[in-house]
């Protein structure tokens, strides 16, 4: 679970869905279908507008994208 911060505040969790999708040749729609999350919610995640993420969503993303949580997001 993460709490989103405003741009002015130091420290922010950033998702790297764009890079992961590009390297795997997958579209956001396809990922949404396979993960079982709506396209709107996945866009929220991709654009760093999510306030929190379920462990089940995180697990599904890691499973479909064959990566670790640390590959999905970084703290900057």
């Amino acid at each position, binding site marked *: 679970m993460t709490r*989103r911060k405003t741009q002015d505040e130091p420290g922010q969790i950033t998702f790297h869905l764009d890079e992961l999708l590009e390297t795997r040749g997958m579209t956001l729609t396809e990922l949404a279908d396979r993960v079982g*999350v709506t396209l709107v*919610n*996945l866009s*929220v*995640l991709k654009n760093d*507008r*999510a*306030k*929190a*993420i*379920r462990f089940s*969503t995180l697990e599904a993303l890691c499973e479909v994208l064959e990566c670790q949580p640390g590959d999905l997001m970084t703290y900057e």
Partner: protein
Amino acid sequence: MSNSPAVRRFLDLVSGKNPALKRFDWPIAYWVTTIVLVLAVVGTVLDALDINLTWNVTYSPESGLHGARTASVKPVADATVDVKTLVPDLQQKLPQGMTAHGELPVSVAFDNSTLRSQVLNFLSSIPMDLLVVALIWLLRRIVLTTVSPGLSSGDPFIKANVWRLRIMASLVLVMPLVSFWSEVAVWELVSPSVSKDLLWMSYDASLLPLQLGSAVVLFILADVFSAGVRLRDDVEGLV
């Protein structure tokens, strides 16, 4: 059973997911609450102008049901008198075994030319009228946030509704005090016209438990809405 279309329609109806219901109910909620608010405002204005409108319905076996409408612009105040004081020999006129007791509601005309009487006249009815108008207005705003897709998001769990409920609870809490003060104002208003021995200053406390109970329920409801707002904030943006 749970897959039956009838059950699904019922569940949609109860949960508010039925789009037909959404389209149908908001004009009703809007107009009903608007009419009630307008009636309360008109009643307050009539009180402020000292226009007393009454509508009485009487029934007797001989003449049947009759309605009578009366209007008066003469400044009058509703007071109560002890029935035994008003009719001293009433007990003697009654058949054996019957006892007279209680009070009679009367309308007492008073001189409204002095500033004191005008202020007392205002205090006897307008504060309670304004209290009722405020309660109806707040309730209307809450109702409209729950049902009207054209006027709001249809989400009642907003901070504004929490404050509306808290203000409503506070208003209901002060209602007995306002009611008591109204009786004091009436008593002071009509006492120069009528002997104080005849008049009763009566305060009906039968509604007090209901008013205090309603205030408590409204405060609890405000806390429930406050928890709803917090939960909504938590859930928003959850993926």
